[in-house]
Protein backbone atom coordinates (compact mmCIF):
# COMPACT_ATOMS: atom_id res chain seq x y z
CA UNK A 1 0.00 0.00 0.00
CA UNK A 2 1.30 3.47 -0.78
CA UNK A 3 1.19 6.32 1.75
CA UNK A 4 1.06 9.77 0.30
CA UNK A 5 2.88 12.30 2.44
CA UNK A 6 1.69 15.83 3.00
CA UNK A 7 3.95 18.80 2.45
CA UNK A 8 5.59 18.51 5.89
CA UNK A 9 8.71 16.99 4.32
CA UNK A 10 10.41 18.75 1.45
CA UNK A 11 9.93 16.50 -1.57
CA UNK A 12 12.92 14.73 -3.00
CA UNK A 13 15.19 15.41 -0.03
CA UNK A 14 16.34 12.36 1.89
CA UNK A 15 16.38 12.83 5.64
CA UNK A 16 18.23 10.73 8.20
CA UNK A 17 16.05 9.06 10.79
CA UNK A 18 18.75 9.42 13.43
CA UNK A 19 21.31 12.18 13.58
CA UNK A 20 24.14 9.70 14.23
CA UNK A 21 24.80 6.11 13.14
CA UNK A 22 23.40 3.83 15.83
CA UNK A 23 24.61 0.28 16.54
CA UNK A 24 22.02 -2.43 15.98
CA UNK A 25 22.29 -5.79 17.74
CA UNK A 26 21.88 -8.80 15.42
CA UNK A 27 20.87 -12.16 16.87
CA UNK A 28 21.89 -15.32 15.05
CA UNK A 29 19.50 -18.24 14.65
CA UNK A 30 15.72 -18.42 14.65
CA UNK A 31 13.38 -17.40 17.38
CA UNK A 32 10.16 -19.38 17.77
CA UNK A 33 7.50 -17.06 19.03
CA UNK A 34 3.78 -16.46 18.85
CA UNK A 35 1.15 -18.67 17.23
CA UNK A 36 1.66 -20.47 13.94
CA UNK A 37 0.01 -18.65 11.07
CA UNK A 38 -3.52 -19.97 10.54
CA UNK A 39 -3.09 -19.39 6.78
CA UNK A 40 -0.07 -21.65 6.48
CA UNK A 41 -1.96 -24.91 6.22
CA UNK A 42 -4.42 -23.60 3.66
CA UNK A 43 -1.55 -22.77 1.32
CA UNK A 44 -3.43 -20.38 -0.99
CA UNK A 45 -1.82 -19.49 -4.31
CA UNK A 46 -2.00 -15.85 -5.40
CA UNK A 47 -4.32 -15.44 -8.40
CA UNK A 48 -2.35 -15.69 -11.64
CA UNK A 49 -3.84 -13.79 -14.59
CA UNK A 50 -2.21 -16.19 -17.04
CA UNK A 51 -4.32 -18.99 -15.57
CA UNK A 52 -7.47 -16.90 -15.63
CA UNK A 53 -7.12 -15.51 -19.16
CA UNK A 54 -5.32 -18.32 -20.99
CA UNK A 55 -6.69 -21.87 -21.14
CA UNK A 56 -4.71 -23.17 -24.15
CA UNK A 57 -1.24 -21.57 -23.91
CA UNK A 58 0.04 -23.07 -27.20
CA UNK A 59 -3.00 -21.78 -29.07
CA UNK A 60 -3.25 -18.32 -27.48
CA UNK A 61 -2.11 -15.13 -29.22
CA UNK A 62 -2.40 -11.41 -28.46
CA UNK A 63 -3.39 -8.68 -30.89
CA UNK A 64 -3.75 -4.91 -30.61
CA UNK A 65 -7.00 -3.23 -31.70
CA UNK A 66 -7.08 -0.37 -34.20
CA UNK A 67 -10.46 1.29 -34.84
CA UNK A 68 -13.82 1.55 -33.08
CA UNK A 69 -16.26 -0.70 -34.95
CA UNK A 70 -16.62 -2.85 -31.81
CA UNK A 71 -17.11 -0.20 -29.11
CA UNK A 72 -20.58 -1.45 -28.16
CA UNK A 73 -19.05 -4.86 -27.43
CA UNK A 74 -16.59 -3.21 -25.07
CA UNK A 75 -13.65 -3.35 -27.48
CA UNK A 76 -11.96 -0.01 -28.15
CA UNK A 77 -9.00 1.39 -30.01
CA UNK A 78 -5.70 0.40 -28.33
CA UNK A 79 -7.14 -2.55 -26.38
CA UNK A 80 -5.27 -5.85 -26.34
CA UNK A 81 -7.21 -8.95 -27.38
CA UNK A 82 -6.59 -12.47 -26.09
CA UNK A 83 -7.30 -14.90 -28.94
CA UNK A 84 -7.69 -18.66 -28.50
CA UNK A 85 -7.34 -20.72 -31.68
CA UNK A 86 -8.28 -23.97 -29.91
CA UNK A 87 -11.93 -22.88 -29.54
CA UNK A 88 -14.34 -23.77 -32.34
CA UNK A 89 -16.01 -20.55 -33.51
CA UNK A 90 -19.79 -20.46 -32.99
CA UNK A 91 -22.67 -18.02 -33.48
CA UNK A 92 -22.28 -15.10 -31.09
CA UNK A 93 -18.52 -15.45 -30.53
CA UNK A 94 -16.35 -12.39 -30.97
CA UNK A 95 -13.80 -13.53 -33.58
CA UNK A 96 -10.73 -12.40 -35.48
CA UNK A 97 -11.36 -13.04 -39.18
CA UNK A 98 -9.20 -12.59 -42.25
CA UNK A 99 -10.90 -10.15 -44.65
CA UNK A 100 -9.00 -9.01 -47.75
CA UNK A 101 -5.74 -10.22 -46.17
CA UNK A 102 -6.25 -8.10 -43.05
CA UNK A 103 -7.21 -9.15 -39.55
CA UNK A 104 -10.56 -7.79 -38.43
CA UNK A 105 -12.47 -8.30 -35.16
CA UNK A 106 -16.26 -8.73 -35.37
CA UNK A 107 -19.09 -10.78 -33.91
CA UNK A 108 -19.75 -14.04 -35.79
CA UNK A 109 -23.39 -14.29 -36.86
CA UNK A 110 -24.46 -17.74 -38.10
CA UNK A 111 -28.21 -18.31 -38.39
CA UNK A 112 -30.67 -19.77 -40.96
CA UNK A 113 -27.85 -20.77 -43.29
CA UNK A 114 -26.54 -17.22 -43.37
CA UNK A 115 -23.10 -16.20 -42.17
CA UNK A 116 -21.84 -12.67 -41.55
CA UNK A 117 -19.48 -10.63 -39.43
CA UNK A 118 -21.40 -8.09 -37.39
CA UNK A 119 -19.91 -4.83 -36.15
CA UNK A 120 -20.83 -3.52 -32.69
CA UNK A 121 -21.18 0.10 -33.74
CA UNK A 122 -24.13 1.39 -35.81
CA UNK A 123 -21.77 3.46 -37.97
CA UNK A 124 -20.18 0.30 -39.42
CA UNK A 125 -21.92 -2.09 -41.85
CA UNK A 126 -21.84 -5.88 -41.39
CA UNK A 127 -19.46 -7.86 -43.54
CA UNK A 128 -21.34 -10.44 -45.63
CA UNK A 129 -19.20 -12.84 -47.68
CA UNK A 130 -19.82 -12.65 -51.41
CA UNK A 131 -21.13 -15.63 -53.34
CA UNK A 132 -18.50 -18.39 -53.31
CA UNK A 133 -16.23 -16.46 -50.91
CA UNK A 134 -15.18 -18.39 -47.79
CA UNK A 135 -15.06 -16.68 -44.46
CA UNK A 136 -11.79 -17.43 -42.73
CA UNK A 137 -11.93 -17.27 -38.93
CA UNK A 138 -8.40 -16.89 -37.48
CA UNK A 139 -9.36 -17.33 -33.83
CA UNK A 140 -11.92 -16.69 -31.10
CA UNK A 141 -11.52 -13.65 -28.82
CA UNK A 142 -11.81 -14.69 -25.17
CA UNK A 143 -10.84 -11.44 -23.43
CA UNK A 144 -10.16 -7.77 -24.12
CA UNK A 145 -7.68 -5.95 -21.93
CA UNK A 146 -8.15 -2.21 -21.52
CA UNK A 147 -5.24 -0.01 -20.55
CA UNK A 148 -5.83 3.11 -18.47
CA UNK A 149 -3.49 6.03 -17.91
CA UNK A 150 -1.76 5.75 -14.54
Amino acid at each position, binding site marked *: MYSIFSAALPPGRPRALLPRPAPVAVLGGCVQAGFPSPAEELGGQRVDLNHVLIH*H*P*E*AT*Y*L*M*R*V*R*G*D*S*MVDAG*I*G*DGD*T*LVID*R*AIKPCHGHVV*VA*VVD*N*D*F*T*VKTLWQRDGQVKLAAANPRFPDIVPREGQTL*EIWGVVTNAIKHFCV
Partner: protein
Amino acid sequence: MLALVDGNNFYVSCERVFRPSLFGRPVVVLSNNDGCAISRSNEAKALGIRMGQPWHEFRHLERTAGVVALSANFELYGDMSHRVMALLGRHAPGQEVYSIDECFLDFQGLPGDLVALMRQVRAEVLQQTGIPVCVGLGPTKTLAKLGNHIAKSAERKPDRYPASQAQVCHLGALSPRQRQVLFTATEVGEVWGIGPQVAARLNAAGVHTVSDLLAHDAAALRQRFSVVLTRTLRELQGTPCLALEDAVQARQQIKCSRSFGASVLDLPSLVEAVSTFASRAAEKLRRQASLAGAVQVYLRTNPFRTHDEQRSRTWTTPLARPTDDTQRLVQAAVRGLEAAYTAGYRYAKVGVTLLDLQAATHCQEELPWIASGNAPAPDRGPLMKAMDAMNQRYGKGTIAVASTGATRPERHWVMRQERRTPRYTTQWDELPEVRA
Protein backbone atom coordinates in the same frame (compact mmCIF):
# COMPACT_ATOMS: atom_id res chain seq x y z
CA MET B 1 6.78 -47.29 -33.64
CA LEU B 2 8.45 -43.91 -34.25
CA ALA B 3 7.22 -40.77 -36.00
CA LEU B 4 9.20 -37.89 -37.45
CA VAL B 5 7.12 -34.72 -37.62
CA ASP B 6 8.38 -31.56 -39.26
CA GLY B 7 6.98 -28.19 -40.26
CA ASN B 8 6.60 -27.54 -43.99
CA ASN B 9 8.82 -24.62 -45.07
CA PHE B 10 8.79 -23.77 -41.37
CA TYR B 11 10.08 -20.18 -41.29
CA VAL B 12 7.88 -19.14 -44.21
CA SER B 13 4.88 -20.83 -42.58
CA CYS B 14 5.51 -18.86 -39.33
CA GLU B 15 5.51 -15.60 -41.31
CA ARG B 16 2.27 -16.52 -43.10
CA VAL B 17 0.38 -17.10 -39.84
CA PHE B 18 0.58 -13.38 -39.08
CA ARG B 19 0.59 -12.01 -42.65
CA PRO B 20 -2.20 -13.71 -44.60
CA SER B 21 -1.28 -11.69 -47.71
CA LEU B 22 1.78 -13.96 -48.08
CA PHE B 23 -0.35 -17.01 -48.95
CA GLY B 24 -0.07 -17.98 -52.60
CA ARG B 25 3.00 -15.80 -53.17
CA PRO B 26 6.65 -16.82 -53.57
CA VAL B 27 8.15 -16.09 -50.14
CA VAL B 28 11.78 -16.52 -49.06
CA VAL B 29 13.35 -16.08 -45.62
CA LEU B 30 16.96 -14.89 -45.69
CA SER B 31 19.72 -15.89 -43.28
CA ASN B 32 21.30 -13.49 -40.82
CA ASN B 33 22.40 -10.30 -42.48
CA ASP B 34 20.09 -10.95 -45.43
CA GLY B 35 22.62 -13.33 -46.98
CA CYS B 36 21.08 -16.53 -48.37
CA ALA B 37 17.71 -18.26 -48.72
CA ILE B 38 17.10 -20.48 -45.67
CA SER B 39 13.38 -21.16 -46.12
CA ARG B 40 11.31 -21.09 -49.30
CA SER B 41 7.59 -21.36 -49.97
CA ASN B 42 6.52 -23.91 -52.59
CA GLU B 43 5.95 -21.01 -55.02
CA ALA B 44 9.55 -19.85 -54.47
CA LYS B 45 10.84 -23.40 -55.02
CA ALA B 46 8.87 -23.53 -58.28
CA LEU B 47 10.72 -20.40 -59.43
CA GLY B 48 13.98 -22.34 -59.08
CA ILE B 49 15.29 -20.54 -55.97
CA ARG B 50 17.67 -22.99 -54.30
CA MET B 51 18.26 -23.58 -50.58
CA GLY B 52 21.24 -21.48 -49.50
CA GLN B 53 21.26 -19.42 -52.69
CA PRO B 54 22.71 -15.93 -52.08
CA TRP B 55 20.11 -13.17 -52.16
CA HIS B 56 21.97 -11.07 -54.73
CA GLU B 57 21.62 -13.95 -57.23
CA PHE B 58 17.82 -13.90 -57.25
CA ARG B 59 17.12 -10.34 -56.15
CA HIS B 60 15.76 -9.50 -59.62
CA LEU B 61 12.83 -11.91 -59.00
CA GLU B 62 11.50 -9.41 -56.49
CA ARG B 63 10.39 -7.18 -59.36
CA THR B 64 9.85 -9.72 -62.12
CA ALA B 65 8.07 -12.50 -60.18
CA GLY B 66 6.77 -10.75 -57.05
CA VAL B 67 9.12 -12.63 -54.70
CA VAL B 68 8.79 -11.46 -51.09
CA ALA B 69 12.12 -11.74 -49.23
CA LEU B 70 12.13 -11.40 -45.42
CA SER B 71 14.92 -11.17 -42.85
CA ALA B 72 14.99 -14.09 -40.44
CA ASN B 73 12.82 -13.43 -37.35
CA PHE B 74 14.22 -16.08 -35.02
CA GLU B 75 12.32 -14.86 -31.96
CA LEU B 76 9.08 -15.57 -33.79
CA TYR B 77 10.26 -18.94 -35.16
CA GLY B 78 11.50 -20.03 -31.73
CA ASP B 79 8.17 -19.25 -30.06
CA MET B 80 6.14 -20.95 -32.80
CA SER B 81 8.45 -23.97 -32.54
CA HIS B 82 7.77 -24.22 -28.78
CA ARG B 83 4.03 -24.20 -29.45
CA VAL B 84 4.22 -26.91 -32.11
CA MET B 85 6.57 -29.12 -30.08
CA ALA B 86 4.43 -28.84 -26.94
CA LEU B 87 1.29 -29.85 -28.84
CA LEU B 88 3.05 -32.80 -30.49
CA GLY B 89 4.67 -33.95 -27.25
CA ARG B 90 1.28 -34.49 -25.65
CA HIS B 91 0.36 -37.34 -27.97
CA ALA B 92 3.31 -39.71 -27.44
CA PRO B 93 5.09 -41.15 -24.40
CA GLY B 94 8.51 -40.11 -25.78
CA GLN B 95 9.72 -37.07 -27.73
CA GLU B 96 13.10 -35.99 -29.06
CA VAL B 97 13.15 -32.41 -30.36
CA TYR B 98 15.64 -32.81 -33.17
CA SER B 99 15.76 -29.25 -34.51
CA ILE B 100 13.71 -26.05 -34.48
CA ASP B 101 11.18 -27.56 -36.89
CA GLU B 102 11.31 -31.33 -36.40
CA CYS B 103 10.93 -33.93 -33.68
CA PHE B 104 10.76 -37.67 -33.23
CA LEU B 105 7.81 -39.15 -31.32
CA ASP B 106 7.99 -42.60 -29.75
CA PHE B 107 4.71 -44.54 -29.63
CA GLN B 108 6.18 -47.67 -28.07
CA GLY B 109 3.46 -49.75 -26.43
CA LEU B 110 0.67 -47.52 -27.69
CA PRO B 111 -2.12 -49.44 -29.45
CA GLY B 112 -4.37 -48.07 -32.16
CA ASP B 113 -4.32 -46.65 -35.65
CA LEU B 114 -1.32 -44.31 -35.71
CA VAL B 115 -2.11 -42.96 -39.16
CA ALA B 116 -5.55 -41.82 -37.99
CA LEU B 117 -4.04 -40.41 -34.79
CA MET B 118 -1.36 -38.47 -36.64
CA ARG B 119 -3.85 -37.08 -39.17
CA GLN B 120 -5.85 -35.77 -36.24
CA VAL B 121 -2.72 -34.37 -34.53
CA ARG B 122 -1.69 -32.73 -37.78
CA ALA B 123 -5.10 -31.01 -38.02
CA GLU B 124 -4.84 -29.90 -34.38
CA VAL B 125 -1.39 -28.33 -34.88
CA LEU B 126 -2.57 -26.57 -38.04
CA GLN B 127 -5.70 -25.25 -36.30
CA GLN B 128 -3.96 -24.04 -33.13
CA THR B 129 -0.68 -22.70 -34.54
CA GLY B 130 -1.33 -22.27 -38.28
CA ILE B 131 1.76 -24.39 -39.05
CA PRO B 132 1.29 -27.25 -41.57
CA VAL B 133 3.34 -30.34 -40.72
CA CYS B 134 4.11 -33.67 -42.40
CA VAL B 135 4.49 -36.99 -40.61
CA GLY B 136 6.56 -40.07 -41.38
CA LEU B 137 6.08 -43.29 -39.37
CA GLY B 138 8.22 -46.40 -39.16
CA PRO B 139 9.85 -48.87 -36.79
CA THR B 140 13.22 -47.04 -36.95
CA LYS B 141 14.38 -43.42 -37.03
CA THR B 142 15.72 -43.81 -40.57
CA LEU B 143 12.38 -45.24 -41.81
CA ALA B 144 10.41 -42.51 -39.99
CA LYS B 145 12.63 -39.90 -41.69
CA LEU B 146 12.13 -41.57 -45.07
CA GLY B 147 8.37 -41.75 -44.50
CA ASN B 148 8.44 -38.03 -43.75
CA HIS B 149 10.26 -37.34 -47.03
CA ILE B 150 7.64 -39.36 -48.93
CA ALA B 151 4.74 -37.64 -47.09
CA LYS B 152 6.15 -34.22 -48.03
CA SER B 153 6.96 -35.12 -51.63
CA ALA B 154 3.59 -36.81 -52.20
CA GLU B 155 1.92 -33.55 -51.19
CA ARG B 156 4.10 -31.34 -53.38
CA LYS B 157 4.73 -33.61 -56.39
CA PRO B 158 1.61 -35.79 -56.86
CA ASP B 159 3.05 -37.51 -59.96
CA ARG B 160 5.91 -39.06 -57.97
CA TYR B 161 4.10 -40.88 -55.14
CA PRO B 162 0.51 -42.06 -54.56
CA ALA B 163 -1.71 -39.30 -53.14
CA SER B 164 -2.71 -41.60 -50.24
CA GLN B 165 0.78 -41.10 -48.76
CA ALA B 166 0.56 -37.29 -48.71
CA GLN B 167 1.01 -35.54 -45.33
CA VAL B 168 1.14 -38.80 -43.31
CA CYS B 169 3.11 -41.85 -44.52
CA HIS B 170 3.43 -44.95 -42.34
CA LEU B 171 6.08 -47.26 -43.81
CA GLY B 172 5.47 -49.82 -41.07
CA ALA B 173 1.78 -50.24 -41.95
CA LEU B 174 2.22 -50.91 -45.67
CA SER B 175 2.37 -54.27 -47.41
CA PRO B 176 5.83 -55.32 -48.73
CA ARG B 177 4.58 -54.65 -52.27
CA GLN B 178 3.36 -51.11 -51.45
CA ARG B 179 6.69 -50.39 -49.74
CA GLN B 180 8.57 -51.70 -52.77
CA VAL B 181 6.72 -49.23 -55.04
CA LEU B 182 7.66 -46.30 -52.77
CA PHE B 183 11.29 -47.42 -52.39
CA THR B 184 11.72 -47.82 -56.14
CA ALA B 185 10.51 -44.23 -56.62
CA THR B 186 12.92 -42.83 -54.01
CA GLU B 187 16.51 -41.92 -54.77
CA VAL B 188 19.10 -43.33 -52.41
CA GLY B 189 20.43 -39.83 -51.63
CA GLU B 190 17.15 -39.00 -49.86
CA VAL B 191 17.89 -41.50 -47.09
CA TRP B 192 18.90 -39.96 -43.74
CA GLY B 193 22.64 -40.42 -43.22
CA ILE B 194 23.54 -40.82 -46.90
CA GLY B 195 25.25 -37.61 -47.95
CA PRO B 196 25.86 -36.38 -51.51
CA GLN B 197 29.32 -37.98 -51.70
CA VAL B 198 28.22 -41.45 -50.58
CA ALA B 199 25.17 -41.14 -52.86
CA ALA B 200 27.45 -40.43 -55.84
CA ARG B 201 29.62 -43.45 -55.04
CA LEU B 202 26.54 -45.64 -54.65
CA ASN B 203 25.18 -44.41 -57.99
CA ALA B 204 28.49 -45.28 -59.62
CA ALA B 205 28.14 -48.78 -58.16
CA GLY B 206 24.70 -49.11 -59.74
CA VAL B 207 22.69 -48.31 -56.61
CA HIS B 208 20.22 -45.56 -57.54
CA THR B 209 17.07 -46.12 -55.51
CA VAL B 210 16.28 -47.23 -51.98
CA SER B 211 15.13 -50.62 -53.29
CA ASP B 212 18.49 -51.02 -55.11
CA LEU B 213 20.21 -50.44 -51.77
CA LEU B 214 17.97 -52.93 -49.96
CA ALA B 215 18.70 -55.56 -52.62
CA HIS B 216 22.43 -55.11 -52.03
CA ASP B 217 24.47 -57.59 -50.03
CA ALA B 218 25.20 -56.14 -46.58
CA ALA B 219 28.62 -57.80 -46.29
CA ALA B 220 29.73 -56.42 -49.66
CA LEU B 221 28.45 -53.01 -48.65
CA ARG B 222 30.42 -53.06 -45.41
CA GLN B 223 33.59 -53.86 -47.32
CA ARG B 224 33.25 -51.04 -49.82
CA PHE B 225 31.58 -48.40 -47.64
CA SER B 226 31.66 -47.35 -44.00
CA VAL B 227 30.05 -49.00 -41.00
CA VAL B 228 27.64 -46.07 -40.93
CA LEU B 229 26.11 -47.20 -44.21
CA THR B 230 25.66 -50.75 -42.89
CA ARG B 231 23.86 -49.29 -39.91
CA THR B 232 21.66 -47.20 -42.23
CA LEU B 233 20.85 -50.36 -44.21
CA ARG B 234 19.84 -52.23 -41.06
CA GLU B 235 17.63 -49.33 -40.03
CA LEU B 236 16.00 -49.39 -43.49
CA GLN B 237 15.36 -53.13 -43.01
CA GLY B 238 13.53 -52.30 -39.79
CA THR B 239 16.13 -53.07 -37.10
CA PRO B 240 16.49 -50.05 -34.79
CA CYS B 241 20.13 -48.94 -34.36
CA LEU B 242 19.52 -45.35 -33.28
CA ALA B 243 17.84 -44.69 -29.94
CA LEU B 244 15.64 -41.75 -29.07
CA GLU B 245 17.54 -39.06 -27.22
CA ASP B 246 15.11 -37.59 -24.73
CA ALA B 247 17.31 -35.07 -23.04
CA VAL B 248 18.98 -32.32 -25.02
CA GLN B 249 22.66 -33.19 -24.90
CA ALA B 250 25.08 -30.51 -23.77
CA ARG B 251 26.81 -29.07 -26.80
CA GLN B 252 30.45 -29.91 -27.41
CA GLN B 253 31.21 -26.44 -28.69
CA ILE B 254 29.43 -23.12 -28.66
CA LYS B 255 29.64 -20.85 -31.65
CA CYS B 256 28.56 -17.28 -32.12
CA SER B 257 29.26 -15.56 -35.43
CA ARG B 258 27.72 -13.04 -37.79
CA SER B 259 28.38 -11.36 -41.07
CA PHE B 260 28.63 -7.59 -40.74
CA GLY B 261 26.11 -5.09 -42.04
CA ALA B 262 28.99 -3.28 -43.78
CA SER B 263 32.59 -4.40 -44.20
CA VAL B 264 34.88 -3.45 -41.32
CA LEU B 265 38.49 -2.33 -41.62
CA ASP B 266 39.52 -1.11 -38.16
CA LEU B 267 40.53 -3.15 -35.15
CA PRO B 268 38.41 -1.26 -32.54
CA SER B 269 35.17 -2.20 -34.33
CA LEU B 270 36.29 -5.82 -34.57
CA VAL B 271 37.08 -5.79 -30.84
CA GLU B 272 33.50 -4.66 -30.17
CA ALA B 273 32.07 -7.42 -32.32
CA VAL B 274 34.30 -10.14 -30.87
CA SER B 275 33.56 -8.98 -27.30
CA THR B 276 29.83 -9.08 -28.01
CA PHE B 277 29.95 -12.59 -29.49
CA ALA B 278 32.21 -13.90 -26.71
CA SER B 279 29.76 -12.48 -24.13
CA ARG B 280 26.82 -14.13 -25.85
CA ALA B 281 28.65 -17.45 -26.09
CA ALA B 282 29.60 -17.20 -22.39
CA GLU B 283 25.93 -16.76 -21.53
CA LYS B 284 25.04 -19.93 -23.47
CA LEU B 285 27.94 -21.72 -21.80
CA ARG B 286 26.62 -20.91 -18.32
CA ARG B 287 23.11 -21.90 -19.33
CA GLN B 288 24.29 -25.46 -20.01
CA ALA B 289 26.50 -25.38 -16.86
CA SER B 290 29.76 -25.92 -18.74
CA LEU B 291 33.25 -24.45 -18.66
CA ALA B 292 35.37 -23.68 -21.74
CA GLY B 293 39.02 -24.67 -22.01
CA ALA B 294 39.84 -22.68 -25.13
CA VAL B 295 38.53 -19.75 -27.17
CA GLN B 296 38.75 -19.68 -30.94
CA VAL B 297 38.38 -16.50 -32.97
CA TYR B 298 37.86 -16.48 -36.70
CA LEU B 299 37.65 -13.63 -39.18
CA ARG B 300 37.35 -13.41 -42.94
CA THR B 301 36.67 -11.07 -45.83
CA ASN B 302 33.67 -11.36 -48.17
CA PRO B 303 34.32 -14.16 -50.72
CA PHE B 304 31.59 -12.79 -53.00
CA ARG B 305 33.53 -9.54 -53.47
CA THR B 306 35.96 -11.17 -55.89
CA HIS B 307 37.81 -7.92 -56.66
CA ASP B 308 38.70 -7.49 -52.93
CA GLU B 309 41.85 -9.06 -51.57
CA GLN B 310 40.80 -12.12 -49.55
CA ARG B 311 41.93 -13.16 -46.11
CA SER B 312 40.72 -15.70 -43.58
CA ARG B 313 42.34 -16.41 -40.23
CA THR B 314 41.60 -18.56 -37.18
CA TRP B 315 43.32 -18.23 -33.81
CA THR B 316 42.81 -20.45 -30.78
CA THR B 317 43.69 -19.22 -27.30
CA PRO B 318 43.92 -21.96 -24.66
CA LEU B 319 42.94 -20.99 -21.12
CA ALA B 320 45.14 -21.80 -18.13
CA ARG B 321 42.04 -22.87 -16.27
CA PRO B 322 38.61 -23.71 -17.76
CA THR B 323 36.17 -20.91 -17.04
CA ASP B 324 32.68 -19.54 -17.66
CA ASP B 325 33.58 -16.00 -16.62
CA THR B 326 32.55 -13.54 -19.35
CA GLN B 327 35.45 -11.21 -18.70
CA ARG B 328 38.10 -13.91 -18.98
CA LEU B 329 36.53 -15.34 -22.13
CA VAL B 330 36.28 -11.88 -23.71
CA GLN B 331 39.93 -11.19 -22.81
CA ALA B 332 41.03 -14.44 -24.46
CA ALA B 333 38.91 -13.74 -27.55
CA VAL B 334 40.29 -10.21 -27.95
CA ARG B 335 43.85 -11.52 -27.54
CA GLY B 336 43.16 -14.05 -30.28
CA LEU B 337 41.66 -11.36 -32.52
CA GLU B 338 44.70 -9.13 -32.10
CA ALA B 339 46.91 -12.04 -33.13
CA ALA B 340 44.77 -12.90 -36.16
CA TYR B 341 44.15 -9.34 -37.36
CA THR B 342 46.11 -7.73 -40.19
CA ALA B 343 45.23 -4.17 -41.19
CA GLY B 344 44.15 -3.31 -44.72
CA TYR B 345 41.48 -5.95 -45.40
CA ARG B 346 37.74 -5.41 -45.63
CA TYR B 347 36.49 -7.90 -43.05
CA ALA B 348 32.96 -9.22 -43.52
CA LYS B 349 32.55 -11.82 -40.79
CA VAL B 350 33.95 -12.72 -37.39
CA GLY B 351 33.07 -15.54 -35.05
CA VAL B 352 33.88 -16.79 -31.58
CA THR B 353 33.83 -20.50 -30.72
CA LEU B 354 34.19 -21.86 -27.19
CA LEU B 355 36.00 -25.20 -27.29
CA ASP B 356 37.05 -28.00 -24.97
CA LEU B 357 33.80 -27.78 -23.02
CA GLN B 358 33.41 -29.67 -19.78
CA ALA B 359 30.78 -29.90 -17.10
CA ALA B 360 31.18 -27.21 -14.46
CA THR B 361 30.86 -29.90 -11.80
CA HIS B 362 34.07 -31.78 -12.62
CA CYS B 363 36.54 -29.03 -13.23
CA GLN B 364 40.19 -29.92 -12.88
CA GLU B 365 42.04 -27.52 -10.61
CA GLU B 366 45.46 -26.42 -11.79
CA LEU B 367 48.44 -27.23 -9.64
CA PRO B 368 49.25 -24.38 -7.28
CA TRP B 369 52.95 -24.11 -8.17
CA ILE B 370 52.10 -23.66 -11.85
CA ALA B 371 49.65 -20.92 -11.06
CA SER B 372 51.99 -19.13 -8.69
CA GLY B 373 53.60 -15.97 -9.97
CA ASN B 374 50.54 -14.75 -11.82
CA ALA B 375 47.78 -16.06 -9.65
CA PRO B 376 44.59 -15.80 -11.73
CA ALA B 377 41.73 -13.74 -10.41
CA PRO B 378 39.13 -15.99 -8.81
CA ASP B 379 36.07 -16.75 -10.91
CA ARG B 380 33.15 -14.59 -10.04
CA GLY B 381 30.29 -17.03 -10.17
CA PRO B 382 27.85 -14.89 -8.17
CA LEU B 383 28.65 -11.86 -10.36
CA MET B 384 28.00 -13.87 -13.55
CA LYS B 385 24.78 -15.21 -12.08
CA ALA B 386 23.65 -11.67 -11.24
CA MET B 387 24.62 -10.47 -14.72
CA ASP B 388 22.60 -13.23 -16.43
CA ALA B 389 19.61 -12.58 -14.16
CA MET B 390 19.64 -8.83 -14.91
CA ASN B 391 20.05 -9.32 -18.65
CA GLN B 392 17.18 -11.74 -18.64
CA ARG B 393 14.93 -9.48 -16.62
CA TYR B 394 15.74 -6.09 -18.14
CA GLY B 395 16.71 -7.13 -21.67
CA LYS B 396 19.82 -8.24 -23.52
CA GLY B 397 22.91 -6.11 -22.96
CA THR B 398 21.66 -4.33 -19.82
CA ILE B 399 24.98 -5.24 -18.25
CA ALA B 400 27.90 -5.93 -20.59
CA VAL B 401 31.65 -5.87 -20.71
CA ALA B 402 32.63 -2.35 -21.79
CA SER B 403 34.67 -3.51 -24.81
CA THR B 404 31.43 -4.62 -26.53
CA GLY B 405 30.77 -0.92 -27.14
CA ALA B 406 27.15 -1.50 -26.15
CA THR B 407 26.74 2.11 -25.05
CA ARG B 408 28.10 3.62 -28.24
CA PRO B 409 25.34 5.01 -30.44
CA GLU B 410 26.76 3.75 -33.73
CA ARG B 411 27.98 0.21 -34.12
CA HIS B 412 28.09 -0.26 -37.87
CA TRP B 413 29.01 -3.93 -37.66
CA VAL B 414 25.60 -4.88 -36.24
CA MET B 415 23.42 -7.22 -38.25
CA ARG B 416 21.48 -6.00 -41.21
CA GLN B 417 17.85 -7.04 -40.87
CA GLU B 418 16.07 -4.61 -43.10
CA ARG B 419 13.20 -6.91 -43.90
CA ARG B 420 12.36 -8.41 -40.53
CA THR B 421 8.69 -8.66 -39.67
CA PRO B 422 7.55 -7.69 -36.12
CA ARG B 423 8.21 -10.20 -33.35
CA TYR B 424 4.47 -10.84 -33.12
CA THR B 425 4.41 -13.20 -30.14
CA THR B 426 7.40 -12.27 -27.99
CA GLN B 427 7.36 -8.44 -27.83
CA TRP B 428 4.54 -6.48 -26.22
CA ASP B 429 5.18 -3.51 -28.52
CA GLU B 430 5.14 -5.59 -31.70
CA LEU B 431 1.81 -7.46 -31.43
CA PRO B 432 -0.10 -7.89 -34.70
CA GLU B 433 -2.80 -5.30 -35.29
CA VAL B 434 -6.44 -6.19 -35.80
CA ARG B 435 -8.93 -3.78 -37.35
CA ALA B 436 -12.13 -3.03 -35.52
